[in-house]
């Protein structure tokens, strides 16, 4: 996390992502979360880096993990367009580190005691859920039958010597799709079984390093390679030993938080079954569900604004108002499309217009399917309640991939 924090600062993302945008896409219920000043933001990152370092060293882990969790989650809440599953995982793990004892043999802190078995169990469950749900999400026709979106993505490496043409082959994309799905669904089992653990971890390293080389998903591979060591025996690196009756006990109320929290982690990725329409298409229940690397979308979006004072609809293109990443995500994310419609309405309201109605004109190219209209163009986006099923305002998907 220290590396990730420094990397974020080093690449100028504090400015580019958090400070420069004039508008931020916030999560439902968190519109009050705003970035701090330039100095405040940089100070926060300094605090995060120090906290991450101290957690790594095992010095007052609960305290500094809590601080890190708060700061990191706050930063993630500022801008929805940069949502990443592994950032969400980092928030979860740092939260769990507050509740469960993690100080062990290599800790600098005073509490150098063995970690109880249930602490391992909770962390294993959490990391295992990531792999399992990621694998489960890949069971679908685009992935299974068409090798999408890998087939589209792997074209980008056509220029690599030797393996470029191989990667660009659609059969290779299909084979990698199947292999990726099998890996995600079974790797936890192989890691837990002592006889296969060593080989499984080597496969895991190959898998994540390949992902790291092929796809720009930041520190995800490093996070998962580190997190997967939780499946090893506690004494795998030398001195720590697992005890059934660990000397670090979970304190009173912590269980009241952990049990519901872990239940939530088990159920949350399944919530899309409550909604009509395919989750990959409507993205209803897509976030916080470990649905990684499943879709490639290219979108066209502009708004049509109707107002009492004008006979003709006003065409509003959001491209020049937003950063590249914001615009890219906006053009394919239904909740953001609705959210930004309200921003546009606010903009024209401030100019004195009334009776505003905002419509989307949108098209989506999705996983090799021919492009089609995405949001129902006849629906006033301002009338949409986000609790309303998305299938009521997103048009159904109607084609098969190439």
């Amino acid at each position, binding site marked *: 996390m220290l590396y990730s924090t420094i990397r974020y600062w080093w690449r100028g993302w504090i400015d*580019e992502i958090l400070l420069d945008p004039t508008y931020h896409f916030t999560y439902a219920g968190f519109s009050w979360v705003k970035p701090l000043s330039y100095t405040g933001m940089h100070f926060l990152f300094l605090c995060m880096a120090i906290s991450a370092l101290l957690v790594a060293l095992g010095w007052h882990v609960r305290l500094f993990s809590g601080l890190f969790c708060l700061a990191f989650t706050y930063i993630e809440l500022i801008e929805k367009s940069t949502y990443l599953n592994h950032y969400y995982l980092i928030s979860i793990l740092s939260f769990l580190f507050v509740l469960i004892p993690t100080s062990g043999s290599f800790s600098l802190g005073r509490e150098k005691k063995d970690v109880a078995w249930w602490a391992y169990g909770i962390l294993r469950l959490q990391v295992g859920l990531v792999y399992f749900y990621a694998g489960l999400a890949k069971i679908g026709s685009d992935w299974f039958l068409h090798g999408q979106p890998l087939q*589209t993505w792997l074209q*980008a490496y056509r*220029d*690599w010597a030797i393996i470029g043409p191989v990667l660009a082959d659609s059969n290779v994309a299909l084979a990698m799709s199947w292999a990726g799905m099998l890996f995600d669904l079974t790797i936890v089992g192989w890691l837990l079984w002592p006889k296969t653990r060593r080989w499984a971890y080597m496969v895991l390293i*190959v898998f994540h390093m390949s992902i790291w*080389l092929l796809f720009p998903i930041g520190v995800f591979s490093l996070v998962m390679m580190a997190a997967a060591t939780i499946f090893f025996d506690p004494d795998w690196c030398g001195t720590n030993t697992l005890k059934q009756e660990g000397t670090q006990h979970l304190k009173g109320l912590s269980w009241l938080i952990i049990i519901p929290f872990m239940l939530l982690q088990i159920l949350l990725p399944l919530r899309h079954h409550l909604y009509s329409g395919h989750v990959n298409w409507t993205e209803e229940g897509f976030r916080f569900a470990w649905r990684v690397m499943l879709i490639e979308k290219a979108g*066209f979006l502009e708004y049509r604004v109707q107002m009492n004072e004008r006979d003709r609809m006003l065409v509003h293109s959001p491209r020049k108002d937003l950063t590249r990443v914001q615009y890219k995500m906006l053009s394919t994310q239904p909740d953001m499309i609705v959210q930004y419609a309200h921003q546009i309405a606010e903009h024209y309201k401030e100019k004195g217009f009334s009776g505003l109605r905002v419509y989307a004109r949108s098209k989506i190219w999705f996983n*090799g399917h021919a492009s089609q209209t995405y949001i129902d163009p006849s629906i006033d986006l301002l009338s949409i309640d986000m609790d309303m099923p998305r299938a009521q305002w997103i048009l159904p998907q109607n084609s098969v991939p190439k």
Partner: protein
Amino acid sequence: MILFITFACTSGQVDDLRKDLLQSWGEDVVVANGRLASDTAQTLYVQHQHFCLSPDEAGLTELQTLWWQARGYWKEIEVFKFGPYKDELRLGPKIDFWPVRVGTIEDIIAGDAELTAASLYGMGASSKGFPVLDYLLYNDQALERMQSEPRYCQLSSAVSEELHVRVQEFTDAWDPAKGNYVAQLTEAGYVTSSYPSLQHSLAEVVNRMGHTVENIRMDKIYTPLGVEIDSTQPDKLESPYSGRSFEDMLDNLRGIQKLYEGSGTTDALGLKELLAQEGYDYDEEFLGLMQKSMDSIRSYTNPMIEVMETDPDALVATAEQLSELQSFIQTDIIGALSLTLSFNDTDGD
């Protein structure tokens, strides 16, 4: 496998159609058109030398024709509004800053500063480039003032020469034998390039194809139509004095069509070949939408400044037609080639 991939990543690139395509776009479209625009601007300057001695209608018509031609070559490469155009030499505004600021031009004419390309070179964008000539060569009193105000003709001549110099600079910046900006695209992934991969440099151009169509709609049609303020804004038109607004749009589209089909010269490549390599045949749809867009623009017999008043609904219909082309580029073409802009990993899953 890791070693295999690592080795493959670091051991150089194989022949890649994307690289050839970017090279072809750089040479056969940007440099070729830039050269034509520059040469024509130079001829325009030379003609001014004769014309300003005894301005007459035939001479003015000749100047207008040369400006029109140079303008056409230039507008065909509007997709390439990056690199030398914007980030480094910032040549774009010095060549094509619009809408024109008449007040600035009149102040220069009324002043007593020397009127040469050298003196204009250090002046602001509103005092030079195609739009200034649009005003000087085409306004209602152009001939009369050319004849009666020596400084008027001198300014027109100086702007022509400066335009030639700037377009030449732009062309040289892209030219593989000179500034070789095209290598920024084709050598993506190497330390000398600002693009991390060929995919990124290709994405830069193809995304701008869509943006160019969007700019036609938003900046060149909707803004002058003035829907928001409920009043037309003729001062926001591109090339209003020459009545070239529609032709500017058509040239923008011709340039995009060249990028798709190839410029027509021997060995010139087009995006269609890359799409075909990936198994996509979009010729019928893309060229059909392009044709419809061009037909819609060509349907106007009067200059846009008049159509804005007489038939604004038709202009809205043209913009709608163009949106079909824009969305096709931004969804099907960009999706098929996985060219959505993503310059950092914070827009992943």
